[in-house]
């Protein structure tokens, strides 16, 4: 037995009567500023009013609210699910790397004659929360690479790289490569035995590219052998060049996502372009 349909509640219902045209001097006076419904504002309402007027002040001069609405209140297709959050997860991994990296740079010293290793040792053993922040940066790097690949797999398996989103796939591949270079250059910075030899081997793998490879190795090392400037080169690439490039490309990536919208999962049937035939009522 199905429940009885209830009548809609009528409480507070008002008939929308048109307001009769009243001359302005007959209208009730507006409430004085700083009051609401005839009583003075509470401190909380004051704070809310201040916030509103500050936002209004900015919006009047920038029209940012339109852009924010365009960016955030988008239509998403039916069937959108948790797999669609992998891109945002990757971006937050990058943001975490950026923030922890900035603070690690306050203690790190790119000095190949022992200072780099000492500064890392100092971060790990003496700085308050140093081991924790360094651990976040170190493990976060792995997490970011894993998330990039999961995001890429989602895009591939869902066919989300197809027209008109091919350019976004290309930008994503560049971001993948930059993430890898980030990992390679960051691996040297602790400057212990493992990072030194890993970099020697990595640079020599670069050198096995025909014709251009040997010159690329010289560029990476800043000379024919691993030398005093190699570490600072890697450091500059790791903390200045790559983060800027990655942030700019993430911006382009996100702009295209907002512009084109996300794709529906492949198991949803596409709506036919043919107009449906509707039998005309007799």
């Amino acid at each position, binding site marked *: 037995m199905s429940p009885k349909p209830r009548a809609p509640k009528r409480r507070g219902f008002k008939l929308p009567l048109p307001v009769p045209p009243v001359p302005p001097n007959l209208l009730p006076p507006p409430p004085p500023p700083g009051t609401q419904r005839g009583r003075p504002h509470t401190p909380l309402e004051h704070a809310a009013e201040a916030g509103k007027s500050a936002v209004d002040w900015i919006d009047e001069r920038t029209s940012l609210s339109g852009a924010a609405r365009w960016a955030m209140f988008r239509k998403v297709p039916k069937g959108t699910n948790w797999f669609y959050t992998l891109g945002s997860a990757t971006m937050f991994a990058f943001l975490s790397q950026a923030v922890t990296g900035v603070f690690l740079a306050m203690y790190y010293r790119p000095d190949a004659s022992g200072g780099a290793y000492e500064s890392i040792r100092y971060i790990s053993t003496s700085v308050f929360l140093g081991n924790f922040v360094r651990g976040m940066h170190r493990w976060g790097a792995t997490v970011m690479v894993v998330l990039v690949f999961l995001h890429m797999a989602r895009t591939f398996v869902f066919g989300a790289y197809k027209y008109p989103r091919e350019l976004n796939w290309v930008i994503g591949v560049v971001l993948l490569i930059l993430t890898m270079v980030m990992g390679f250059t960051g691996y040297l910075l602790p400057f212990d035995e493992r990072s030194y030899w890993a970099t*020697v081997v990595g640079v020599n793998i670069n050198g096995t590219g025909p014709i251009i*490879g040997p010159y690329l190795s010289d560029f990476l090392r800043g*000379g024919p052998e*691993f030398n005093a400037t190699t570490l600072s080169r890697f450091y500059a690439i790791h903390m200045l060049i790559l983060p800027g490039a990655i942030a700019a490309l993430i911006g382009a990536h996100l702009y295209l996502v907002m512009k084109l919208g996300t794709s529906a999962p492949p198991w949803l049937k596409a709506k036919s372009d043919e107009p449906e035939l509707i039998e005309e009522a007799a």
Partner: protein
Amino acid sequence: MAPARRPTKSKYTLDRGIPGAFEGETVTRRRFMTGTVHGAGMLMAAGFTIPALGFALGPVFKNVTLGWQTVGVPDDFPDNNYVPIVIVTSPGIGEAGKSTIYMRKRDPSVDKQPLTQYNRWVAITSRCSHLGCSVLWVEASERFICPCHGSVFDAEGVRVSGPAPRPLDRFYTRLLNGLVQVGPRYSVNTELRAFSPRDPGEPLDGLGQYLYPSRPTVRKLPGHV
């Protein structure tokens, strides 16, 4: 052919009735000013981009030479076994700039290259010619063995097995005032022919010497490819 939608304009400013036009003028002032501003902008951008790029790329073209390093006296080196010696390959960075080499006296029954003043001692690098890990001289088996990817080299430094593409690099040696000195590194192919120093991973047999040319950072040694 379809007729042009718009009447084609003359290229002369005079014909187009532009105020201030004169005989034979084709570039309008607007176009000239636009070009000038674009050109000035590019000039200014080039003014800081080109020096910055040169600054980053400079080391690729800078020749780095290390002098001769004294490693001992002639009696330190037997002709039937290698002696490990630590030399500086990159000055100014302490331990990270040091490298081990293996040295012995030349043995005419094994070393068939013609004797010169630079090969009276055989000095072989410990950098594996595969990817640059440190090879170890194992006396019992008379082999150099790399721990990373398992390349094995015989007592001459020639590859026996593993992924290494060429023999181990060597160093020039000389005798000066009764002291044995080690000089520049050079690479060899399987026939032990000398080449300018190459990085690990670069073969020198056949086409390899052309695919992996010597670089400006390490001087082309006289008489070497």
